[in-house]
């Protein structure tokens, strides 16, 4: 295969963090069209990120300060700002 899968896996990862340059994009997509292994790798990296983001949202989306934390903070603010 013209472009080694190792290099394509690097582009698959990079594409999640930056815009690929035009020639990288061409190389990447031409290779993916021919190579199911790299397609699987690309999809799995995307799936890991999507699932992780969803998990994070579910975990932290609804948390709130507890009343104890809030009161403690009001007290400290009062002491520090004198108001």
């Amino acid at each position, binding site marked *: 295969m013209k472009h080694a899968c*190792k290099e394509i896996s690097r582009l698959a*990862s990079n594409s999640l963090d930056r815009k690929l340059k035009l020639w990288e994009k061409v190389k990447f997509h031409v290779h993916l069209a021919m190579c199911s292994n790299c397609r699987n790798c690309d999809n799995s990296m995307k*799936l890991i990120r999507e699932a992780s983001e969803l998990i994070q949202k579910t975990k932290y989306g609804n948390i709130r*300060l507890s009343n104890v934390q809030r009161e403690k*903070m009001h007290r400290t*603010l009062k002491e520090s700002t004198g108001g």
Partner: protein
Amino acid sequence: MNSKSDPHQWLSEHGDYLYRYAMSRLHNEELASDMLQETLLAGWKGFDKFAGQSSIRTWLVGILKHKIIDHIRKEIRNRNLTEAVENDPTSAYFNENGSWSEAPSAWKDNPEDLCQSEQFHAVLDSCISKLPEKQQIIFRMRDITGEDSETVCKSCDITSTHLHVLLHRARLALRKCLEWNWFGQGTRP
């Protein structure tokens, strides 16, 4: 004092939002509420620098964000977490000619189902915890918290090139670990 500079009111109006922001990045209740408190005080002290061009919330988030970056940066320095770019560990997944030494399989699961599976959370966590520490921090910031690359680089004192190298390593290692422990055929617990 300017009547608008009221940290008590900020706490009431934006406290939960800021706390959520801190918790999702620090994963530690005590630390997150400390950071929030410091932010409110810094905002009170530096209120004359608030230009009024953005909302108070945006301004406070900016202060909190910097505090968190500083914290992570110190943490990384204190623990002396470095990782050389040399000694490429990704070679282990490929043959000499650059082809896969073990073919990646197609993962059929969708993110919504994975998100709802406690078992998957546990497997994902354990796979992440097997990464070198700096990769863990970077991967969590980038793919879990969704922090932008620039912020991750600043927090970790690395260049964007180094960031890309470390994320490539982390994602290949995670992919492999999840393939073995979750997606692999017949090995699902």
